[in-house]
């Protein structure tokens, strides 16, 4: 394989992908950085004054920013916690011998294939609606007062919807990892007199560590930019209760047409994502053998 000729050919074949991704990263990002220093609003044409860090100080001191930062962390953390704990338990359950395992798998994985806008609208209207939603019907049947999820616990409701979409993914990956666990290891620990409980903590969980890392990495990438679910359910409200950084930047730039402010927000989002990413890449870089 490794003759000079094939090496040159290989470089050539790799370059379009590298150039495209490089362009995709560098060109818009440098434009965003540039805009973030300008007073630039699409509604006020012609003014592109350089205003230094004013956009940043505006964005970073805006109370909405802290609300959004906090919401983003809660959203990511909450969904990760639910999907990982739930995923581990569900994966262990699905790994047991049972009848109709294939069908159960299909049922469990289904929400992952539902587009975010559909999932969110279905939850919002058909389940969480305080008048006609299924939960309201159930509450009434039990003689309880219906709960207005999106008004009274908006962020928790969104976390619930998003977790429903991602639980299948975590489960599927953890199940796959579980199935690669050496049966003999489990039998050995049974022979060693370990209880199912200690088998879980000393053998199963360490074996799953790598898969859990991967789940955290992938989900974090997607969860940091949850958008559609918020757009179609609460529009970030009430107040800023469900505004995450992604939604805040969107609102700033495409609803208020403030390109400068939105860009500053975008850069803040990139920096935050990078801080998270560095951690995650460290973790996973060790785990990926190439």
């Amino acid at each position, binding site marked *: 394989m490794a003759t000079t000729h094939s090496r040159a050919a*290989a470089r050539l074949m790799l370059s379009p992908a590298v150039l495209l991704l490089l362009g995709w990263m560098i060109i818009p990002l440098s434009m965003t950085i540039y805009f973030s220093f300008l007073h630039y609003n699409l509604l006020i044409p012609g003014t592109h004054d350089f205003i230094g860090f004013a956009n940043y100080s505006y964005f970073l001191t805006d109370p909405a920013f802290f609300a959004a930062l906090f919401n983003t962390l809660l959203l990511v953390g909450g969904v990760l916690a639910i999907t990982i704990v739930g995923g581990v338990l569900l994966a262990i359950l699905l790994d047991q011998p049972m009848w109709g395992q294939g069908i159960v798998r299909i049922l469990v*994985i289904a929400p992952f294939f539902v587009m975010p806008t559909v999932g969110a609208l279905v939850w919002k209207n058909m389940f969480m609606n305080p008048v006609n939603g299924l939960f309201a019907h159930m509450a009434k049947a039990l003689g309880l007062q219906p709960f207005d999820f999106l008004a009274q616990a908006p962020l928790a409701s969104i976390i619930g919807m998003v977790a429903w979409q991602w639980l299948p993914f975590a489960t599927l990956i953890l199940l796959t990892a579980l199935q690669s666990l050496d049966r003999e290891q489990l039998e050995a620990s049974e022979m060693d007199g370990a209880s199912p409980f200690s088998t879980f903590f000393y053998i199963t969980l360490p074996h799953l560590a790598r898969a859990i890392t991967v789940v955290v990495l992938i989900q974090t990438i997607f969860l940091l930019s949850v958008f559609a679910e918020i757009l179609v359910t609460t529009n970030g409200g009430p107040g800023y209760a469900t505004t995450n950084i*992604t939604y805040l930047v969107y609102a700033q730039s495409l609803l208020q047409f403030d*390109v400068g402010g939105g860009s500053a927000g975008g850069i803040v989002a*990139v920096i935050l994502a990078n801080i998270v990413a560095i951690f995650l890449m460290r973790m996973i870089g060790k785990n990926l053998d190439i």
Partner: protein
Amino acid sequence: MARASSNRRKTVVTVLAWAIGLLIFFPILWTVLTSFKTEAEAVASPPSFINFHWTLENYAEVQSRSDYFRHFLNSVVISLGSTVLGLIIAIPAAWSMAFVPAKRTKDILMWMLSTKMLPPVGVLIPIYLIFRDIGLLDSLLGLIIVLMLINLPIIIWMLFTYFREIPGEILEAARMDGAGLKAELLYVLTPMAVPGIASTLLLNIILAWNEAFWTLNLTAAKAAPLTAFIASYSSPEGLFYAKLSAASTMAIAPILILGWFSQKQLVRGLTFGAVK
């Protein structure tokens, strides 16, 4: 373990797993059922599960009101287009990294993964403005390009993990047997990689189909795919549950079916080969 107790255990596990499975699946099932109800039945209290008056009128109405098929076609074009374009760029790249690895191959792969971490809002404005200026806003081509770019790292990684499993010796054998680069790709590599390429294709169609940041922000009316079509149901007008359900069912059914076929590949593709 005794036979009887192991059977009892299996029964308990089965019941529990089915219960949880149905619970997780229930919102989808409920949506599909509601789509066949009349609007009045859809909000009736107590709700009826299957003994209602089944009707297809919601589907007809959704089609006539918001032109489902046009959005459906847009979704098909965008997801297929971006995936195929991505594959054309990714196959040579993954091939070269898998079979002619260099010292920096691992770094390049990690870097590609890291571009996936760039939050879309960070580049939303420039892309929006560029697209506006060159007329790609609300165009299928524009979305094809963007979705291709955001999924390119996943496509490359996924193909890489498949290609890496093809032993290099086989390609060398082909070269000894007189196969040139073309014959090697045509008769040896491609047939061996077809399952891998097919699953990559499938998974990326799913990801592109469900992508809901760029599709919502870069389209208005013309190029809007199903994600945007559904978003138009977010502001209720009168009784609309049954219609919402019908629209939702139509939006997710094609991809749900594809997804069920590709669930095994999903793990591999989305974990960059780290979990198999």
